């Protein structure tokens, strides 16, 4: 993992001290709320429905066990005993008091964490594939360039007041687990015809009220010029992005309005002026950063573990968990373990302080002391010996962390919605809970197979509903909660935006509607087809027909 250098330590410590002064001046009345609001937002502090909410950055979703213990401590001491892992791979606390925030931030700084750039019109926390450094199809570890982009974008003086917020996602593999097509900039590590490693750069993706898929602006940018190319994109956006209308201020609108060819031409012109200049990384710097992400000291193990294979044969419940929650590791004898934060009927992404502490201990025991946060609101142990899987599963079960449902219909993304969020029009979490309970039976859940449901409580789409195989958007209709359903969305390398299936459903009819969609899929599917495959083959109509005939 990356460790802070003296600059990082100094920068974060200075910001904590600065914010302590700002909070004191706010509490004394020296600063009005209008003056204070932009300052607190720059430090990740929102005022939400019930209380303040602090969003803590988890750079590219990577946490050490020490950091996880600190997050547990903060949940216990400064909040109400839990935290919420988000679709941005961050963690949010829903109840901290303003007067306590400086102390809280100081404690975070002790473990090299902060809440900087988790809000505001700046470059936000960089997100990445949670299987970084572990999967076989990876060309290069995406954390290396995620960290370089983090350092480049942290307190970047030119890009601290952009027209709107700006999100960058990185995948190091052809399989996209970072949803790069729905980010302002998506970076995919690729190899060119000469065998050199660089990046395909996508620009102008995003969700919200105007969802758009990113377009390839350059098929290959050499690593040596990556920062100057990013800087050129941001400069063009900063100059031409709209500031008169916040709903039209994201880069996706600019790219759409002037067209990708014109946008590319402007970027190229800007890039020519700075390419190879001082913004590029100094020689050796990328290698220095890469060293932080060197593989852990793996043991030489046989590719197949007898202990693991026997356990699967002997214990049906373990076999079910292994089927959905494990992913093949590139190191023989190891596996990637996904830890579901979606217990049946639970709140997607929530973890208690006790669970966080226990996970830190388990990460130390089984996964080199490292934990990943996924954008689908789960956690990952990236490097677990297959010999240890059965033991780990036994340890996770009593913690409520062994639900065998990764990628299934009960592994639902849901934003906080009207239960917590000031912007929401409708609740999202209870809809997820209803669907989860409806499909609780693990045999049925596994028979339905891969099905990604994503729920947002408002048009801002924090719950990624546009890219759900089944997307659910909460709307307010004359003071009542209604839910619009979309089908066919996809956040991966075959990215697509969902299509609205028809009129919205009342709060208590959504789970029925989802069940109708699932039953329709099961009736129509051919051998090996996932829900998305069947939808792509048959289209919207058969689903629409069943859905509205049944209601």
């Amino acid at each position, binding site marked *: 993992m990356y460790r802070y250098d003296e600059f990082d330590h100094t920068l974060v410590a200075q910001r904590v001290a600065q914010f302590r002064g700002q909070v004191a001046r706010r509490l004394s009345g020296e600063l009005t709320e209008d003056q204070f609001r932009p300052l607190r937002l720059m430090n990740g502090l929102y005022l939400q429905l019930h209380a303040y909410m602090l969003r803590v950055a988890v750079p590219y979703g990577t946490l050490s066990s020490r950091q996880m213990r600190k997050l547990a401590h903060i949940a216990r001491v400064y909040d109400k005993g839990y935290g919420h892992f988000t679709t941005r791979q961050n963690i949010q606390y829903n109840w901290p008091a303003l007067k306590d925030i400086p102390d809280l931030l100081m404690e975070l700084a002790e473990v090299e964490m902060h809440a900087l750039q988790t809000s505001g019109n700046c470059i936000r926390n960089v997100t990445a594939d949670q299987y970084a450094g572990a999967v076989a199809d990876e060309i290069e570890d995406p954390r290396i360039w995620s960290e370089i982009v983090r350092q480049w974008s942290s307190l970047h003086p030119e890009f601290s007041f952009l027209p709107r917020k700006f999100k960058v996602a990185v995948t190091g593999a052809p399989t996209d687990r970072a949803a790069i097509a729905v980010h302002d900039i998506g970076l995919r590590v690729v190899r060119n015809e000469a065998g050199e490693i660089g990046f395909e750069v996508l620009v102008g993706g995003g969700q919200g009220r105007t969802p758009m898929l990113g377009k390839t602006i350059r098929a290959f940018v050499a690593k040596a010029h990556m920062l100057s190319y990013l800087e050129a994109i941001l400069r063009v956006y900063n100059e031409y992005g709209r500031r008169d209308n916040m709903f039209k201020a994201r880069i996706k609108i600019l790219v759409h309005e002037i067209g990708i060819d014109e946008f590319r031409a402007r970027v190229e012109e800007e890039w020519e002026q700075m390419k190879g200049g001082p913004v590029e990384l100094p020689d050796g710097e990328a290698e220095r950063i890469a060293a932080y992400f060197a593989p852990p000291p793996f043991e030489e193990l046989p590719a197949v573990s007898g202990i693991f294979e026997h356990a699967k044969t002997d214990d049906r419940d373990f076999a079910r968990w292994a089927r959905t929650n494990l992913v093949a590791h590139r190191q023989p004898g190891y596996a990637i373990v996904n830890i579901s934060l979606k217990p*049946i009927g639970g709140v997607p992404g929530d973890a208690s302080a006790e669970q966080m502490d226990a996970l830190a201990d388990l990460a130390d025991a089984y996964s080199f002391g490292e934990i990943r946060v996924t954008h689908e609101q789960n956690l990952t142990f990236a490097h677990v010996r297959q010999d240890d899987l059965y033991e780990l599963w036994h340890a996770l079960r009593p913690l409520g962390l*062994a639900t065998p449902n990764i990628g299934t219909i009960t592994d639902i993304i849901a934003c906080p919605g009207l239960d*917590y969020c000031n912007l929401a029009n409708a609740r999202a979490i209870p809809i997820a809970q209803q669907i989860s309970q409806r499909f609780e039976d693990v045999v049925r859940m596994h028979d339905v197979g891969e099905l990604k449901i994503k729920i947002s409580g408002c048009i801002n789409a924090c719950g990624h509903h546009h890219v759900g195989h089944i997307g659910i958007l909460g709307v307010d209709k004359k003071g009542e909660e209604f839910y619009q359903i979309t089908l066919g969305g996809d956040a991966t390398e075959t990215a697509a935006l969902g299509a609205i299936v028809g009129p919205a459903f009342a709060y208590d009819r959504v789970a029925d509607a989802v069940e109708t969609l699932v039953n329709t899929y099961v009736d129509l599917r051919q051998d090996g087809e996932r829900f998305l495959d069947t939808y792509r083959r048959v289209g919207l109509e058969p689903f629409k027909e069943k859905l509205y005939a049944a209601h």
Partner: protein
Amino acid sequence: MSEAKGPDRTTDEGALAISAARGGRGAALKVVTANRLTDGVVVYLTADGSWAEHIEAARSVEGKPAAEALLAGADAHVRACRVVAPYLIDVVTGEDGVLKPTSYREAMRALGPSVRLDLGKQAGQG
């Protein structure tokens, strides 16, 4: 398998818990709400000019002039750094005589998250 579950958050209960009051007596009643500066807790302006954590204690008024006067009175509390961003909300008096917000959003603020009945004002917390 005996998977441990999250807390019981029966959705029907949740729906019931936040169901906003509709119509009823005094549909034009208004109260002033805000968030307390120091900790963000939702508060309501009371008849004696203090701020209460529970809507039952709020001062309700009828008619636009009275509502505007009530809101104007909250400005002093903003200047005194007691609360943030006060505003008027619609309430009705329930059959039990207790004030209830008419919107889902305000019902949620008055009670706490519908998915965590152990938290917020519904659980006796601030």
